[in-house]
């Protein structure tokens, strides 16, 4: 790859994006921060990963574990061990109620596969990145930069997760907003058995044991192709009604 025409590309002191309002991203940040504060308050652990830029994962974790402002509580944030299969490592590590934060490009397949499992594992997923966005719905929270320069993007990731930390702590001080959201709808998709994602743990004949946010369940798999461990399926009334994708 050749240098950009301007060798000082990262300098660009008066670039159009510099002081520009970040618009919807600020709203996304606020919502993500409240979601993280709720999960932390309920005892969740935040798992941080960045396959391409592991230093970002380490930076996020240390911000939360050892806050720069004295008196702020230390919150449980952990770096996902590097160099191994991300989905497999997370599968073994996360518990329902946890959070997974990734800093990665929108085309990072391991991150996409991990985020897809968020609802089956019961974890809140947050994807920070720049450039082409991941597909809609790829994570519960997508904090995305409109930034094509990889170095500028890297700098702005730091600002993003500094703000994420700070806003999470502001939310932390609003206990009334941190209670679990209570479902009051008459017919609620979450509470009714309307097709919940689950991850296959093991298969025996026409039955499978699957992982859901509420624990293990034995389900019937008669009406789908025999799944394999690691597959995501949609479960309704004790049966797998469709396979969401192949696992690994």
């Amino acid at each position, binding site marked *: 790859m050749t240098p950009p025409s301007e*060798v000082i590309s990262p300098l660009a002191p008066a670039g159009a994006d510099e002081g520009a309002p970040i618009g919807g991203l*600020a*709203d996304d940040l606020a919502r993500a921060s*409240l979601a993280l504060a709720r999960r932390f308050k309920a005892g969740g652990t935040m798992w941080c990963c960045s396959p391409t830029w592991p*230093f970002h994962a380490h930076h996020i974790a*240390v911000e939360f574990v050892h806050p720069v402002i004295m008196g702020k509580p230390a919150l449980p944030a952990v770096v996902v061990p590097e160099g191994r299969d991300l989905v497999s490592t997370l599968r073994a590590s996360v518990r329902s109620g946890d959070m997974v934060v990734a800093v990665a490009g929108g085309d990072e397949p391991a991150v996409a596969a991990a985020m897809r499992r968020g609802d089956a594992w019961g974890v809140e997923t947050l994807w920070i990145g720049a450039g082409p966005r991941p597909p809609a719905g790829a994570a519960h929270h997508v904090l995305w930069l409109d930034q094509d320069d990889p170095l500028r993007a890297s700098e702005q990731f*730091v600002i993003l997760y500094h703000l994420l930390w*700070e806003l999470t702590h502001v939310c932390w001080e609003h206990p*009334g907003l941190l209670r679990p959201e209570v479902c009051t709808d008459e017919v609620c998709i979450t509470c009714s058995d309307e097709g919940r994602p689950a991850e296959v743990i093991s298969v025996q004949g026409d039955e499978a044991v699957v992982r859901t946010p509420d624990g293990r369940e034995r389900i019937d798999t008669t009406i789908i192709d025999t799944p394999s461990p690691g597959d995501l399926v949609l479960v309704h009334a004790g049966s797998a009604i469709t396979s969401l994708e192949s696992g690994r």
Partner: protein
Amino acid sequence: MARTPEATDFLYPFIEREERDAAPLMADLARSAQAKWAQSAVLRAETLQQGDARLRAVATAMATCFAAGGRAFTFGNGGSATDADAFAQLCTRPPWGEQLPVRSLAFDQAVLTALSNDIGFEVVFSRQLEAYGRRGDIAIGFSTSGNSDNLLAGFAQARKRGMLTVGLAGYDGGRMGASEDVEHCLVVRSDSVHRVQESQAAVAHVLWAFVQSALGPAEQLTDPDQKVAS
């Protein structure tokens, strides 16, 4: 236990546990994020503009070391340790330009814990530099306060070994800014740890780009695995 509503509660919408509507807080947080984003951008631009000549001079000195076969070692604590890792990764797996031999001393937990346990945390960088550093190599320390004992010990050891020493600090530069062991101290003038780190990331990137530029057009031996922008 629910508290008894008081007539003045409307003055303190966030003070009690009855708060239910997140919308006002969300709006406040979004405004706050916008303002801090803008502050960070201003600090970055000021830092790079005011430091331009200094950064070019430091980059030239570093390029001279690299061209003569020198290596660089980066170090820092906490978030600054991740900055040290980031700079090493940028140099060894660049998006463009020449691959440069730069290694983070904040990376190897066996070495870090051995030194901390047997001697003390103040030697975790100096002892490594004693082992790895050679005349003509470069020591690059990242700090926000500029006051970390283990960084100052590292710089002292590096100078003793005839290495080029480059420090990144915040606030007024702290002890690093005043130390004769830090030949080049690049200071981001802010008293917010977060804003300092954000601009230090930019300083490191510009320093890297100037080093590449000072080394001149080399063969483009870029790591084929390097991912860019995506």
